[in-house]
Structure formats: C-alpha cells, structure tokens
C-alpha cells in the first residue's frame, strides 16, 4: 500500500498537467458517468409502467339486457373491473329522490360520469343503472343491500343501496354516496351506449364502431 502511495505522489510531481486540470477531468468523467447512470436507470423505471399488453386489454363489452329481471343486478367484467347493471323497479327509481338530503353530492356535480348521464337516476334509461362497482374510497366492491327499511339491517330510513364491506361507505341505488362516509365521491359511471333496446355496450360512448 505505502509503496503505491509513494508512486502516485512521485507521478504527480513529474506530470506536466496541473492538479486543477486533473480535478476538472475527474469531475467531467463523474458527470458523464452520472448521465450514463440516469440513462441506464430509465428502462428499469419504465418497466414499472403498464406493458403494451396491459394497455391493449379492456375492449368494450356487450351485454344482453333482456335476461335481467326487474330488481335484479348482474355484474360483468370490463377492464378487469366489475361493472354492475341493475334493472331498477319503478319503486326503486321513485325512492331515489328521498335520499337527496342525506347525500354528499346529490346532483353528482363532482362525480366521474359521462355527460349523457344526468339527473337523480344517473342513467341513460332510468330503468337500467350501469355503474362501476368499485368504491371511490379504496377500491373494494360494495355489496348490494336492496332490501328497504329495517329488514335491510341498515336502519329504518334505508331506501335500498350499496354498502362497502371494507370501510362502511354507503351508496344509494344511483351510486350516490351518503354524507360523512369514507368514500369522497359518488360511484363512477363508465362510458356506455345502447346498441338496441336490449343490447348494451360498456366501454364506449356511442354505438358507432
């Protein structure tokens, strides 16, 4: 070790270039190395993003509505997430506005939903409620609680709706969240369109190809 040190200091004194230019050279090399390092890190960071295959998945899904009875709900998979289609009875639709006073955002002003979904019922056709079955709090899928009143186990004022099992957020039958729930906003309505009276396309805003 000590021999090497002596060699190095000996080399310094006989070298023509100054110590300063050696330092500059060293700094430049380290700087260039850092740039290369960043370049090398890029693919590793980029590999964390969804792959092309993951991005390509999630084609629109077609659903036959004729098999759903009034008051029944089916769940279909779209982009790996549950999409609910609930065929609401006239009583269910009538009861929706009764909830307004207890809701956080009854007019769905802050909700994520397509423009063509308007009003209290949050649907193109009031009868069919199409909704992403994913709680806006932390992404659990709420459970249907369609029974009304005390038999629902949700209290006497319950007009039917959904209860998230994870943190207890409650939603009405139009996916609107009640006040002071963990979920900040109403449930999301995905883009959807009617191909005919009984055929629904989920994942697209219009029936055109």
């Amino acid at each position, binding site marked *: 070790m000590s021999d090497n040190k002596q060699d190095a200091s000996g080399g310094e004194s006989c070298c023509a270039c100054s110590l300063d230019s050696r330092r500059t050279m060293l700094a430049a090399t380290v700087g260039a190395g850092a740039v290369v390092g960043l370049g090398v890190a890029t693919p590793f960071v980029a590999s*964390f*993003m*969804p*792959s092309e295959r*993951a991005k390509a998945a*999630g084609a629109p899904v077609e659903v036959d509505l004729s098999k759903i009875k009034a008051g029944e709900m089916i*769940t279909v*998979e779209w*982009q*790996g*997430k*549950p999409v609910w289609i609930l065929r609401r009875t006239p009583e269910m639709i009538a009861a929706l506005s009764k909830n307004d006073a207890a809701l956080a955002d009854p007019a769905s002003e*802050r909700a994520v939903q397509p423009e063509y979904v308007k009003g209290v019922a949050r649907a193109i056709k009031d009868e069919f409620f199409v909704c992403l*079955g994913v709680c806006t*709090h*932390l*992404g*659990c*899928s*709420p*459970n249907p609680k369609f029974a009304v009143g005390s038999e629902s186990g949700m209290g006497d004022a319950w007009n039917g709706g959904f209860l*998230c*099992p*994870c*943190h*207890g957020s409650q939603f009405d039958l139009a996916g609107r969240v009640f006040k*002071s*729930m*963990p*979920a*900040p*906003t109403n449930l999301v309505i995905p883009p959807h369109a009617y191909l005919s009276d009984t055929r629904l396309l989920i994942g697209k805003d219009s029936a055109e190809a």
Partner: protein
Amino acid sequence: MTCCKIVTDKAQQLLGWVDERFPLTTLYREHLAEYYAPKNFNFWYFFGSLALLVLVIQIVTGIFLVMHYKPDASLNAAGVPVAFASVEYIMRDVAGGKFIRYMHSTGASMFFIVVYLHMFRGLLYGSYRKPRELIWLFGMAIFLCLMAEAFFGYLLPWGQMSFWGAQVIVNLFEAIPVIGPDLSIFIRGDFVVSDATLNRFFAFHVIAIPLVLLGLVAAHLIALHEVGSNNPDGVEIKKYKDANGIPLDGIPFHPYYTVKDIFGVSIFLIVFAIIVFFAPEGGGYFLEFNNFFPADSLKTPAHIAPVWYFTPFYSMLRATTSDFLPVLWAFVALIAGLTFRGTGCVWIKRACLLLVAGLYWGFFGLTVFGFTPPPIDPVVLGVHLGRGLDAKFWGVAMMGGSVMLFGLLPWLDQSPVKSIRYKGPLFKTILTLFVISFVLLGFLGTKAPGYAFFGLIPGGPVAAICTILYLAFFGLMPWYSRIDKTKPEPERVTSK
C-alpha cells in the same frame, strides 16, 4: 493424547492461516467473546435474538417455498389461478410442504409479535435515548421493511384477502394529491391488481426487500456493538471500568448471553411448534379464512380486514372520517403546539411549525386543485377557507404518520432518566394508556366497520379516542417527560 495435540495444533495453524487473511478471531472477540453486555438483562432482552431467529426461519422456509410456488395469475385448465393452485399443491401434494408453509405463515405473525415486544422493551427502558438514536432509526427502517415484506408476501397466495388487501393498500397511494392516480398504476403495473402486480410483488418479496432487510439488520447490530447495549436500569455500564478497560457491570456476550438466548430460543420454538402443528391458522388471525378462496376481481368478501399486525394502523386510517377530521385537526394542532413548547430540539420545533402549516393548507387551504370540501367551509369575503384535501388523504397521512412517529422518540423524550424503573407515575400512566389504545385499535381493526363492544359501545368513537391517545403519547412526550416526578438513577446497574 499426542493425536489430540496434533489435531489442536493443526486447527491452530488453520485459524492462524485464516486470521492472516480475514479477521475471524477479531470478529469473534469483538462481537461475542469480548462484547461486554450489562449483567442485568431480563426477560425483555430475549426478543432481539428471537427476531434474528425468526428472520432465519423465514429465509430458509421461504427458499423452499419458492421451489414449488408459481407467481402466475392466469387460470389453469381447472379454471383456478395458477398461483393459488401452486399453494394448494404445496399444501396437499408436496411432501412436508404443508409444514414448510405453516412455518412461513406462522413465522410472519411471530416476527411481528417478537418485534412489537422488542420495540416495547425500547419504550420501557429508553433504549432509543442518546447515544442509541441510530440503533433505533435502523430498527425503525427494519420495521418498515418488515411491513413491506409482509404486505408483498400476502399477495402471493392469490386468495380473496390477498387480492383485496393489495387493492386497498395500493389505492391508498391514490390519495396523494396530483401524482396519486398515476403512482398507483405505476405500483400495480396495470390498471387493476393483476398478473403484473403479482410478479413484481413476488420479486420484491423474495429478493429486493430481504436484501435490504439483511443490510439493515447488520447496520442495527454494528451500531449496537459500537455504543453497547442499554439495560433495564438505563445507566451506562461504560462509566465504571476495571484496570483492563472492561466495564465492571459487563459480562461477555458469549457464553453468558448465548446460553441465556438459547434458553429463550427453546421456549420460543416450543410455542412456535405448537402453533405450526396444532393451530396454524391462528383462529383466522394468522391465516385469514377468506384467503382459502381464489382471488375474484369482481367480488369483495363480505368482511375484509388486514392481518392482525397491521390493524392498529389500519384502525387509525378508518377512524379518520370527515366527521372526525375537525376534532382530529384541533387535537393535532394542540399536541404540535405543546410539542413545540416542550422540546429542546430545534428540528422538532421546525417540524411542528411545518406540520401545523401543512395541516392548515391541506385542510382549510386552497381551492386550487378542486378537492372536495370538508364539513366546515367558512367563507370570508367570498373566499372559501374550508376547501382542502378530503378525509381519504388524511386517513392515509394518519396511517403513514402514526408508524413514522416512533422514529421521533429519541428527540421527544426529555426525561432525565431512561428507564421506566426511575420514571414517575405520569409516564407509567400514559404508557399504559398508549398500550391499551394500541391493543384496542388493533382489535377494532380486525372487526367490521359497524362493530360495537358487547353490542353497546360503538367501535367508531372508541377508535377515534384511541387515535388521539396514540398521538398524544408521542406529541405530549416532551411536556410530560419533563414535568414527571422521576426517581434518581443508581450509579451502577442493580439486580432485581
């Protein structure tokens, strides 16, 4: 006789050969035979070495599990996810596989039991106090790694709880303003928890985090052996040394504490074996029943809760509702104010100011990002003062912050004595309340949101009170640790 002598001579020669090339004897002396630990270690000092033992159990059983496990979310011919099926295969078809897996799953819970007790020992005897701050911080980093390790590992069986647990925790990151939604996609590698998520969690669980963990354990031990162990009296044994520079109250780690620890290990392994052989599911606490169903991305189980070791922090997340936020805000501001007054550390003073400013900005702050209004929204001269980040964000901040608070202990504790033996009634009361709150929060976290004690006392308000008490333990420490009536510390360690 001559034969023996030849063998010992050869062994000596071999050792000499190694020592010239690697400091084997030096290491053995520094860390075992001539590492002088205080002679008054008690029951609470078992858990450090036990944590090391569990780490070894987890690594060894883990290696064997990886030989049969497949991180693959696609469905097999029978329509079952391959990952889930491979765990079933280990349980049913691999010879001894059942026990290896039970050792690993029991080991996870035992790891947290041992580490929580190890941390509690630190609280009892002030082991985080100067000069052991870095040991404590390395320990905190180990605790965080352990939580990450447990979380990543829990996804691998690809059961219902695996899937929905990961879904909830990854979605927590979505609450971070601006970058949140993209960050959660970045973590999952997909728009939903999927095969990509499973594969990367597998990589983190089996190699990335364990490597960091081992490094941190080494740092924890190196720092410990640099300053020396604390003890139940909280006095420094290095103050009184004999002529050879050996602490008068110190005894060599080997053989004294190796023997003591082997005794602890034996008792621990008996308990461990009883669990593995007779109660591997731990009553649904160690292995949750819903995880025996394969992951279904369309249906959340009726009751989901994290594994028990996360529930205290999870409860605090759940307690942070928009109703509770104003109360919580007021208490945190009050606690931060008292911390500010009580602490002597300028960095903690600055952190308190930053915390209050951040809370104000976040909760009553700006409308810029269009966040949802909190319940109180006073309007002054047409400006909304009450538009801030919503309860979801604060829940996440609460959960993360409550874990990190442990890291501040070395600078929060202003008591003139380290050990609980010489601390006053105030500290003892507050520590008891803290432990009760922690256990209650943990218990409530395993229950459904609407749980009530005996069907009478609703769990929500209890969790809210416990959250405040938890925060107060840390936040008020600079104040109560100073005014508490302490007893004088002895000069040297005592043997009780």
